[in-house]
């Protein structure tokens, strides 16, 4: 039997100073599928994403390609699942764009000769060649988002996880970012409350609120359900309004 790319069973989680953030989460994801996780602020989307490559751990609750996330296989799992964080300032911490993109491959013990080649290839793929020597803090938000994506793509993960990829971007940058994501043919999990980008990027959608899954199904079906969306502080994508 072919293993699912992601399988989550009975995942519950709470931070020490918070009530339950995730309650009994169950879902699975096929290889190559794009899943959009939507929900209002505080729904638990980002916390759920942090479980996908073991930044937050619940023994056995999360399986990646049939392998439960454990201390022993964490390195292998992190190579398979790449997370692009919401705020690029959290993701980019090295003095130059080149170093930031090379950070992951170096830590995963890739061959040093290959790293340089891979970094340049990724920067080229995202149109970032001219930024390699720049300090990430001196770039615009759109550029920083692209560099954040590059830091993950260079690891060639099988599953790409994105937390609010289009938040705070101007329409032009948003369009170009969506275009880049459309051309990445990997299993994708995108958490966002930007309905437009979810509509353009995802095959399936999971709606979360207060740590629970409220709905899960085809994007076309859930994103057209105005009543459901409004009951969860969301709205129809602009493409589906009249």
């Amino acid at each position, binding site marked *: 039997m072919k293993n699912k790319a992601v399988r989550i069973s009975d995942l519950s989680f709470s931070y020490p100073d918070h009530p339950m953030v995730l309650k009994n989460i169950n879902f699975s994801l096929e290889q190559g599928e794009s899943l959009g996780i939507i929900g209002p602020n505080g729904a638990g989307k980002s916390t759920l994403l*942090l479980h996908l*490559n*073991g*930044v937050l751990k619940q023994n056995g609750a999360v399986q990646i390609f049939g392998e439960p996330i454990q201390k022993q296989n964490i*390195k292998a799992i*992190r*190579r398979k699942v*790449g*997370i692009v*964080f919401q*705020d690029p*300032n*959290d*993701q*980019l*911490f*090295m*003095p*130059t764009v080149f*170093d930031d993109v*090379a*950070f*992951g491959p*170096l*830590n*995963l013990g890739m061959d*040093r000769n290959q*790293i*340089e080649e891979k970094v340049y290839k990724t920067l080229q793929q995202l149109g970032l060649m001219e930024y390699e*020597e720049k*300090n*990430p*803090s*001196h770039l615009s938000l759109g550029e920083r988002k692209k560099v954040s994506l590059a*830091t*993950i793509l260079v*690891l060639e993960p099988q599953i790409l996880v994105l937390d609010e990829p289009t938040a705070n971007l101007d329409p032009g940058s948003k369009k170009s970012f969506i275009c880049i994501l459309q051309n990445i043919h990997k299993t994708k999990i995108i958490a966002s409350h930007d309905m437009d980008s979810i509509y353009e990027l995802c095959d399936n959608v999971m709606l979360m609120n207060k740590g629970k899954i409220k709905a899960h199904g085809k994007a076309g079906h859930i994103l057209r359900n105005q009543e459901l969306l409004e009951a969860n502080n969301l709205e129809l994508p602009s493409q589906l309004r009249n």
Partner: protein
Amino acid sequence: MNLIRSETENHDSSCLMNLDPRIKIITTTLFILVIGLTPPSAYVKFFLYFGALISLFILFQIHIKKLISRLFILIPLLTFLGISVFVFGKNTSSESIHILWNLSVKSILIFLCIGFLFLTTPFFHLIKSLELLKTPSVVISILTFAHRYIFLFSDEAERMKRSKKSRTFKKQKLNSEIKTLAHIVSHLFLRTFERTENIYAAMLSRGFDRKIKTLTFFKTNKKDWIFCFVFLFYLLSVGVIL
């Protein structure tokens, strides 16, 4: 901070800028040591050190005016030293002048040395060189993060200050001004804490194992050794023979 910020401005104006940063660090550190160990009455030596620094600035095409203008940041320190020496010291006035001269001339020369290092070497080259010179990785991490996030936090503090200003309708009393400042600082600390958590999560997800690794690429060539030899010869002649 302006000194660090200016690292982006100066680096390709002279072929000497491409000297191996390790050589620059070693020679500058030696120079600082020699300055520190020079007796205060060796006026000629101080003059020659100053001459050497000016020659370096000219050779490396550093904007001397800009660097000299940054010397003003030493004024509060020197004023404080002056007050401590004259008001609280138990020395005669000629001894006090001697002490103050010693401290002032050395701090100015050392400041110029550090300025030389910063203005001729990109910060991340300095970091990489320190790493190659076997500086403990904790120090490297602290410096890297300080440099990466210092601007971010100064911008954040600036935004908070602006927001406070926009809601201040009349001049506040010193008391409440201090109180507000304390609140701003505490918020900044909290945000710093949250950000460190997020950054750590981002680092973990890219395979971080508590060691900052970088791709190093420095090569020492003839030009570096000539610079090192000439510089040390000069220091030796001034410091020992004169």
